[in-house]
């Protein structure tokens, strides 16, 4: 299945969009260029050979301050073919909360991505460009920082109230 999807992507978008492939892992996956992810997802959803109509999960990942990279992992499922496929993107980003690393939103392809992306924005701090409603979802609107980042420091006070741990 990995080979088939690779050929579909290279045919449509060129060889250079595929940055890496996971062949050792239990589930096949591809790392693609972040700026093209929305188009690739749309193609994989609409192509009759793949038909990934169901987005199982979308996870934001912080790969740590040493690597300086953030990632988004998409788990695509196809209901008619009963297959599962992993797509990944990686973007370089600074640790500054005012400069969140940008990734194109796939909420136009699957509406379920809207909440998943809000969650990834909220907890990991990834800015999804083109997202219609990018607000915090699990944490309060006035929360500072993104807790799932590896360098996150727990807040000492909230709204002027000291927090005792």
């Amino acid at each position, binding site marked *: 299945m990995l080979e088939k999807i690779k050929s579909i992507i290279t045919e449509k978008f060129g060889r250079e969009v595929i940055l890496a492939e*996971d062949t050792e*892992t*239990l*589930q096949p*996956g591809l790392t693609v260029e972040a700026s093209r992810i929305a188009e690739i997802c749309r193609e994989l959803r609409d192509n009759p050979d793949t038909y990934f*109509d*169901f*987005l*199982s*999960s979308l*996870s934001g*990942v912080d790969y740590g301050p040493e690597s300086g990279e953030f990632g988004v*992992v998409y*788990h695509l499922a196809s*209901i008619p073919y*009963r297959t*599962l496929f*992993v797509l990944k993107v990686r973007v370089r980003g600074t640790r500054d909360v005012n400069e969140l690393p940008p990734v194109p939103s796939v909420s136009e392809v*699957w*509406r*379920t991505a*809207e*909440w998943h992306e809000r969650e990834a924005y909220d*907890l990991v701090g990834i800015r999804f460009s083109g997202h*219609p*409603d*990018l*607000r*915090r*979802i*699990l*944490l*309060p609107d006035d929360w500072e920082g993104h*807790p*799932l980042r590896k360098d996150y420091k727990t807040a000492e006070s909230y709204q002027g109230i000291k927090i005792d741990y």
Partner: protein
Amino acid sequence: MTTRYETLKNNLKTEEMVINMGPQHPSTHGVLRLELITNGEVVNECIPHIGYLHRCFEKHAEALTYPQIIPYTDRMDYLASMNNNHIFAMGVERMLGIEDRIPKRVEYIRVLVSEMNRIASHLIAVGTYGIDIGAFTPFLWCFRDREHIMNLLEWASGARMLYNYIWVGGLFYDLPVGFEERCREFVDYFKPKLNELDILLTDNQIFINRTAGIGILPLDVAINYGCSGPMLRGSGLKWDLRRVDNYSVYPEIEFEIPYGKGEMGQVGDCWDRFKVRIDEIKESVRIMEQCLDRLQKELKRTPDFDPRALAPKKCFPKHMEYYMRGESPKGELGFYFIGQERSEIPFRCKARGPSFNNLSVISEITRGAMIADVVAILGSIDIVLGEVDR
């Protein structure tokens, strides 16, 4: 950039009114706040606000070893803890590469307790749905029957709701002596009660009038919004991960997948989702019986059987990445693990809760509904806020 929410709030018309339903509202099943923009009795827009029960599951998981995370999964969907335990444990076992060596007796016990928990979860869904609509008796009847399941599971695991019973590589303990016989007694007791419930609620004309043709969720919308479980099946698709992924011993067990047929109104309405749950209870009873048959015959308890024999002392995963999905009572529960070399602690552990995705469709299906129907629609989604907020 202005968000859609700001645009909605800034462009309120004179005749529109904003009503907050929740966070403390009995029909929101926990702490969920629905912001309704209404025009008279009609809901123009419904904006859910979640996060009141956020307990940082993913952050905690990054500081704990794999077996230590299992009690935290209990607290996600706290009405179906066994299913959460089961799916999490299977995911870790596949990363360890020991999933083929799990003894058959352990697997059958896991399926047995998971299905018991599925019945308990669906009984809550059905009972509280009745009370949302205004039928009080089914609620009490469902809780009475659920109590027997709670007692049985307490006997096996020591806890009534948060079990931590299914471990990575095995079980906490083998079933207590006499458990299988007591389960059979429960099945014999429970089957006629299901018929009573059908007469009382499923075929009740008042109930049908309140739910049929309300909150219709078309199949393409359901798939696009990532709905799963009874939500997706209620819209008419036979999609059950127990059959699709064939995990555990489900391939050896016979059961049907109920799906919505639009008997009372249209396919994908509230009644269909409700009916799917009722039918799933019946299927789960069938699965229970088949498990009990095996557990009492060829997989009988032996004195030297140790359900913890395979449980690893140190959980060093062989494979560094895995996405495990399984069918919990609410739908597709997924865990995405990223492991670390020579470490028992996951680098990232993302939980994909079915309720989270099922709830996201609510603004789509409540548009144009009456305020009283919002209660009916929300009840038919059957959310557990512990899992929405994690």
